[in-house]
């Protein structure tokens, strides 16, 4: 069994940096949704159709938040904010699952969702302050030729199962295995989740947080960095980068 490095007091958790992490540069994000599409391709995310999507049942693990305020033409918009599972170091979704379907990985310090174990109580989703979890309400069709597009490295989920962003853990494993077979450490930038790979503006940066020299660690430490709802004590592993000013937008 894996050794458990659970600190005795929660405050000690705050000293842990996490292992894998992400920085999202909101000043670079153009809201093009390429990451959303790439994520869906990579992770076999089902397409729920217009009606269900309009009713808030789309299964995207990553959403680009974009708010409008005011009446046309005096419309103010917020920036674009991609929101995905924050892979909390102290995750509220984990302890509430009665069957251990939502657990913490020791090796990657990520939140895992065990599809086979999930019985669909949906408690984890209610307890997620980031609304990052999505639920398979039905068995969705994959008409030809979409059925040929499935990624063999990722489980196809059936109805009644909770799912969420995994930081493309299948890619993490691949990279780790490759590095291990070559007898070296994983190089910075070697591992890219689908969203980061697809981002034309290079707004999503992924890497090791426990390596102070990695690009993501350095970016996270700049003055532009902040985390979502830091006050909740969930210890997100995603850092949002944003200047005080809004570039190229009204207001």
């Amino acid at each position, binding site marked *: 069994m894996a050794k*458990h490095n*659970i600190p005795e007091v929660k405050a000690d958790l705050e000293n842990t940096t996490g292992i894998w992490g992400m920085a999202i540069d909101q000043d670079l994000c153009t809201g093009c949704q390429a990451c959303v599409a790439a994520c869906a391709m990579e992770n076999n995310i089902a397409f729920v159709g217009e009606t269900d999507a309009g009713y808030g049942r789309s299964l995207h693990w990553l959403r680009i938040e974009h708010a409008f305020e005011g009446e046309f033409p005096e419309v103010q918009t917020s920036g674009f904010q991609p929101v995905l599972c924050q892979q909390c170091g*102290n995750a509220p979704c984990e302890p509430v699952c009665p069957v251990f379907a939502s657990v*913490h990985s020791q090796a990657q310090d990520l939140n895992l969702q065990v599809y086979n174990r999930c019985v669909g109580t949906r408690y984890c989703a209610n307890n997620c302050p980031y609304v990052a979890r999505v639920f398979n309400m039905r068995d969705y069709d994959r008409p030809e030729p979409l059925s040929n597009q499935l990624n063999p490295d990722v489980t196809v989920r059936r109805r009644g199962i909770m799912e969420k962003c995994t930081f493309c853990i299948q890619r993490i494993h691949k990279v780790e295995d490759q590095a291990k077979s070559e007898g070296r450490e994983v190089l910075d930038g070697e591992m890219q989740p689908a969203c980061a790979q697809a981002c034309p503006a290079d707004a999503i940066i992924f890497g090791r947080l426990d390596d102070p020299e990695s690009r993501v660690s350095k970016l996270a430490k700049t003055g532009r960095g902040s985390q979502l709802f830091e006050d909740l004590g969930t210890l997100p592993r995603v850092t949002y980068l944003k200047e005080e000013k809004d570039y190229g937008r009204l207001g």
Partner: protein
Amino acid sequence: MTDKNMLLAVFSDLDPAAHAVEKLRELGLGDEHLNVISGIPITEAMMGRPHQWTNVPRLALGGALGGFLLGAYLAFVTPTTYPLNVGGQPVIPGPPSVVVLFELTMLGMLISTFVGVFLDSRFPSYTPKEYVPEISDGRIAILIECDPAQEVAIESAMTALGAESVKHAEAQTL
């Protein structure tokens, strides 16, 4: 048992029945030869009968202990068979363990109390027994185990005290 007779004296009221118990004792019948059957719970003190022994409290206590141990197994042992980190909480959580211990202790106690009633009263038993249906109409019956020689004396004494009927008790299918 073959040389003993079973008599069933049926009374319609509490007071004569209590007197009858006293009279039977005077006639030399020990408490172990009598049994009172009634349609409502009447206490032993009302009938002047010795206190009834019941194992249910002990069984309940034993069940509570068993439930507690099962709860302790669930709360303290099962998490270690497959330790998983959830939300930075300890593998064996403190306050939630109290909940598990409480529920299983109560469950153990209540189930063993229920089972205790079955064990102590020998439920279920569908063998024929000495009984008359009037008992559930509120009559009080005294089941008397006596020598055939005493039978006449007992019968007249019971009738004198106001028994509605005194007869040989026949085991019947309830």
